[in-house]
């Protein structure tokens, strides 16, 4: 029993306050209500222990005394009443003594309020109406001094007997079986605005939404139409309200399988309709939304379900399981109050402020006072519905109501729940981005113009080596002529298998000038991937910048491989090129991880590139000339601004080559050298370089992209700089050219958990749409679609995927849009908040990875049977102060053989780029499956533990230094134990964690650990040796005095 579990909560109290607009005699009133109580065994019910068992019985000693309060002398009687009621509604009954309380309150001589609170054990809505009417009748008789004779209402005890017999019938047993079977079906959890329904009793707020007379009248008319019309007006109205509510849940929570709890009066015969007591039973409407449902087709199914419920909801049938099985409840209350002693009455139904567990909200439709106007009381869980969510659910429900009223035959997915003003702000104004750009030109034209202006400026630097604008232009033109001779032309492709280098810049411009598109391949990519990236786009040749790279790729393919040496001689063939690209020709192809394991190439055109760069020029540079670093793989598109914005504006590219720096250290070097103006990093990298920014003077823009940027990290970066810098955040998929939004971080205004992604750039439109491709209103999850001139042509050789992802923009004739798979919602400030991926694609350190793609690859391993790949977030890390979640890929598999993780890694390294290498591999005896025989991801064990227990021998650390390092690594890598012989990178470490580990060593021992030595031999044993070596060297370099001082400090 709930009240026993929560004895101090008035959760189950039903409170009504009847405002009587006329004079009432409190003496007669008291007599009248006493009479009613005397005549109702239900009202006199108490619960007492008998032989340790709680038993209900009617106690003749319970009297219906009414307390009298007079607020009419107060300065503000109604305010005094409100204060009183706020306290009174929290009062809890002693169930052993009495389960109701009654007060008569005088506000004015001709304005009285009757306050009646009853425990739900003894009453329901119909019974409350009966108590009210009986009291009104008795009052009328009392006034005439005619209050005699026994009460005529049937007694509850008769029903108790009836119910006992009924429970023995077949009909009852069949109904029990019906519910058992019905509740068997698993339905997904319904979430409102991305929040979980609380599992414990909580707070709630009641929000009455008055529909107004016009709406109420129209609803009554529509209730009589096909689809909703049932055999009584009440049933028809119930069906209509259930249809409105189901549609609202479907559109707001995005759920197709909806359960709505609904109380039935449960009175089995006409006689019991006059009995005071609790008869109410709760049934469950199981509503499955179907494709192309209209209000009418949905109403028809709900009506059928309602009839089924009416047959199966029998007295005594409700079980706790039934009561916990629905997140939303609809209560259509047809009880009425009526007048009192000839005075008009208005009824307040007062909520105690407490709420059942496992429920999000209840909608209680009432018209107590028979005005003809419906009130929809939204009782909302306070944990789930804050002030914003409360407004949203009300206005979104009303949007559904008004749409149905406008045309009740329309589809339930055919409209947006946005209000007109939201539509204006979040859809029209947000996307008012039309802006001119040189549509007839390509970036080559802009580069040429810049060469004309600043021929002697330095275009790029790598170490000591520089190249001028003129030389970059000439060498690339010369290369273009060579390529044309080899067959390069618009719509042909040339692959670039090159380090980040001056040669790579010559290569890119050379390919573009020849008319062809370039396909950039990272030098760390494995052979299979390289091969696919050269053969799929049918590259006519490959460019490389070292003999070694040339040899590597020549072994793969039979197309020519050209070696570019910027110091070598060249033909100086500078004539006009015969086949320059047109704006609609292909400019480059970026390969990303694909769901089949095969990377997919995105085809970007010159027009898209031009539109993007033209916007970047204004949005990034804001009228300045800036130098950019070339510090990340050009195989992903994050370097597009560096590669194309710098050369068309007179800036310089500072090259941080993978040939010159260990992976992950380029970013550190940028801040140590401080030789550029604009730095683009993923948040993962940003947290890494946080300690290096304080000494910089030059860097003025820090640009975050590729992953969600936490506000805490952004704030910390600003603080670390300790001077004015611009910190910008961006969003955009490769398929629409790098990025389509920008936001300048403002610590004063941006106080949410994540920094907003900002507003779309020139000629780019960002839509947040639901599955019906309707714009979602605030709070509701939608998928991001990007429409722009820059939308890619599609993926290379993937017609099916193209049809799914690249669509005609339904909101703008002639435009195309990309369906991103990124889920998000609008917040109350009109900002976009991310809500994860729709598919199982993930981003790790800014790189997109399709989990199913990795699974497909692993499935090809000869010894692997079942395999699943997922992302785990390592929160228990020593670096949690870095304000960035540590996401790791983790693999679980089954195999008949015992497999070594190291062997698996080696095998996988030949198939995927190392950025995609999972951190954890766990062999399982058996794959956990769900009842529907799918892999049960929730039941997968913690990865690290099982890997170590099962697969690795541990060599325990011995020296103090080793023990300290082992502790730190265990914490960083989230491992239960670690051996001094384990390779950091084979037990979950990656380059970023490595840099962090090095920094930690530097702090801990106050040394400068030589970074390459970490990468040379990343085991605890060897790193401890290096630390010792450095410490000894330091001591050697000290004189006697310093050593003595140090020793004395130690001993203190």
């Amino acid at each position: 029993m709930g009240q026993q579990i929560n004895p101090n909560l008035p959760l189950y109290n039903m409170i009504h306050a009847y405002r009587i607009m006329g004079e009432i005699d409190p003496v007669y009133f008291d007599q009248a209500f006493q009479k009613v109580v005397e005549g109702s065994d239900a009202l006199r019910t108490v619960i007492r222990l008998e032989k340790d068992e709680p038993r209900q019985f009617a106690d003749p000693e319970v009297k219906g005394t009414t307390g009298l309060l007079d607020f009419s002398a107060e300065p503000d009687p109604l305010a005094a009443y409100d204060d009183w009621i706020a306290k009174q509604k929290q009062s809890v009954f002693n169930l052993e003594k009495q389960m109701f309380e009654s007060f008569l309150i005088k506000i004015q001589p001709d304005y009285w309020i009757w306050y009646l609170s009853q425990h739900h054990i003894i009453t329901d809505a119909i019974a409350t109406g009966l108590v009210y009417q009986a009291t009104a009748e008795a009052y009328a008789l009392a006034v005439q001094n005619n209050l005699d004779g026994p009460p005529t209402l049937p007694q509850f005890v008769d029903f108790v007997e009836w119910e006992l017999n009924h429970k023995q019938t077949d009909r009852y047993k069949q109904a029990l079986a019906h519910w058992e079977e019905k509740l068997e079906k698993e339905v997904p959890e319904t979430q409102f605005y991305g929040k979980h329904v609380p599992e414990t009793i909580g707070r709630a707020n009641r929000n009455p939404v008055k529909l107004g007379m016009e709406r109420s009248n129209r609803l009554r008319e529509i209730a009589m139409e096909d689809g909703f019309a049932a055999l009584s007006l009440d049933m028809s109205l119930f069906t209509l309200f259930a249809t409105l509510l189901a549609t609202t849940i479907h559109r707001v929570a995005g759920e197709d399988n909806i359960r709505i709890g609904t109380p039935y009066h449960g009175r089995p015969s006409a006689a019991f309709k006059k009995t005071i007591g609790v008869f109410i039973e709760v049934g469950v409407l199981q509503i499955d939304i179907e494709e192309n449902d209209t209000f009418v087709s949905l109403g028809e199914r709900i009506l059928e379900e309602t009839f089924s419920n009416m047959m199966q909801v029998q007295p005594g049938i409700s079980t706790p399981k039934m009561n916990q099985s629905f997140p939303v409840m609809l209560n259509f209350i047809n009880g009425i109050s009526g007048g009192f002693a000839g005075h008009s009455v208005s009824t307040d139904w007062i909520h105690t402020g407490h709420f059942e567990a496992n429920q999000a909200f209840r909608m209680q439709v009432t018209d107590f006072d028979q005005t003809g106007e419906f009130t929809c009381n939204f009782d909302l869980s306070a944990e789930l519905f804050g002030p914003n969510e409360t407004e949203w659910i009300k206005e979104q429900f009303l949007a559904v109501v008004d749409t149905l009223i406008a045309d009740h035959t329309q589809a339930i997915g055919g409209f947006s729940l946005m209000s007109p003003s939201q539509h204006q702000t979040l859809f029209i104004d947000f996307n008012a981005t039309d802006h001119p750009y040189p549509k007839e030109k390509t970036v080559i034209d802009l580069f040429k113009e810049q060469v004309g202006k600043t021929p002697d400026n330095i275009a790029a630097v790598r170490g000591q080596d520089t190249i001028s604008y003129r030389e970059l232009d000439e060498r690339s033109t010369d290369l273009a002529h060579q390529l044309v001779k080899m067959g390069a032309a618009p719509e042909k492709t040339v692959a670039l298998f090159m380090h980040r280098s001056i040669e790579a810049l010559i290569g890119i411009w050379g390919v573009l000038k020849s008319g062809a598109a370039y396909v950039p391949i990272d030098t760390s990519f494995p052979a299979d991937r390289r091969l696919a990236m050269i053969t799929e786009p049918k590259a006519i040749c490959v460019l490389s910048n070292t003999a070694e790279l040339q040899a590597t790729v020549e072994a793969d393919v039979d197309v020519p491989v050209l070696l570019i040496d910027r110091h070598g001689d060249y033909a100086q063939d500078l004539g006009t090129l015969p086949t320059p690209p047109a704006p609609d020709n292909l400019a480059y192809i970026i390969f990303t991880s694909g769901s089949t394991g095969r990377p997919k190439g995105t085809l970007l055109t010159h027009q898209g590139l031009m539109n993007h760069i033209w916007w970047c020029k204004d949005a990034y540079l804001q009228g300045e000339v800036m130098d950019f670093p070339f510090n990340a793989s050009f195989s992903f598109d994050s370097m597009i601004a560096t590669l194309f914005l710098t050369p068309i504006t007179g800036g310089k590219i500072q090259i941080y080559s993978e040939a010159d720096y260990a992976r992950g250290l380029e970013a550190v070097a940028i801040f140590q050298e401080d030789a550029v103006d604009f730095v683009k990093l993923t948040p993962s990298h940003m947290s890494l370089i946080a300690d290096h920014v304080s000494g910089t003077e030059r860097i003025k823009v820090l640009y975050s992209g590729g992953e969600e940027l936490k506000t805490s990290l952004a704030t910390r970066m600003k603080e670390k700089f300790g001077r004015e810098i611009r910190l910008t955040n961006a969003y955009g998929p490769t398929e629409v050219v790098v990025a389509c939004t920008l936001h300048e971080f403002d610590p004063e205004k941006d106080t949410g958990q994540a920094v907003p992604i900002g507003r779309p750039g020139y000629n780019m439109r960002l839509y947040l749409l639901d599955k019906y491709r309707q714009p979602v209103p605030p709070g509701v999850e939608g998928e991001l679609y990007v429409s722009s001139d820059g939308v890619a042509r599609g993926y290379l050789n993937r017609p099916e995927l193209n049809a799914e992802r690249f669509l005609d923009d339904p909101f703008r004739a002639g435009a195309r849009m990309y369906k991103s798979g990124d889920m998000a919602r609008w917040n109350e400030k009109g900002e976009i908040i991310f809500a994860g991926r729709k598919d199982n694609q993930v981003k790790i350190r800014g790189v997109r990875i399709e989990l199913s793609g990795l699974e497909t690859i692993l499935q090809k391993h000869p010894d692997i049977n079942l395999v699943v790949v997922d992302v785990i977030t390592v929160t228990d890390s020593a670096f949690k102060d870095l304000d960035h979640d540590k996401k790791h890929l983790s693999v679980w598999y089954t195999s008949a053989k015992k497999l070594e993780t190291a062997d698996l890694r080696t095998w996988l390294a030949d198939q995927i780029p190392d950025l995609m290498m999972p951190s954890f591999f766990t062999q399982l005896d058996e794959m956990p499956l769900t009842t529907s025989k799918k892999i049960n991801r929730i039941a997968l064990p913690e990865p690290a533990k099982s890997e170590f227990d099962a697969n690795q021998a541990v060599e325990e650390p011995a020296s103090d230094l080793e023990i300290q390092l082992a502790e730190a690594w265990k914490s960083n890598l989230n491992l239960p134990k670690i051996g001094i012989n384990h390779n950091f990178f084979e037990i979950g470490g990656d380059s970023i964690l490595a840099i962090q580990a090095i920094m930690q060593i530097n702090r801990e021992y106050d040394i400068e650990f030589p970074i390459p030595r970490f990468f040379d031999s990343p085991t605890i044993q060897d790193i401890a040796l290096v630390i010792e070596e450095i410490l000894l060297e330091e001591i050697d370099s000290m004189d006697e005095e310093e050593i003595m001082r140090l020793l004395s400090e130690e001993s203190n």
Partner: protein
Amino acid sequence: MTNLESISEYITATFLIDNGQDSIEPDDNLLLSGLIDSLGVMQLVAHLQAENGIKIEPREVTLKNFKTINSIVGFVETKISG
């Protein structure tokens, strides 16, 4: 007794007296008259099933089948012969 008579009699006895109404015609709209509420519908369905040895599915409890006494008679006769 014909089906029409039997059903009319049941409705009169069960609902009309309760409602204080005098009479009901075979083509009177039961829904609009407010004569039968949801409890009444269930009582009526149970009665028709028991009396005629038929099983009425929830999807058959439609306005079309239950709008008037005549439509109920038609529906019941189809069920019996079907």
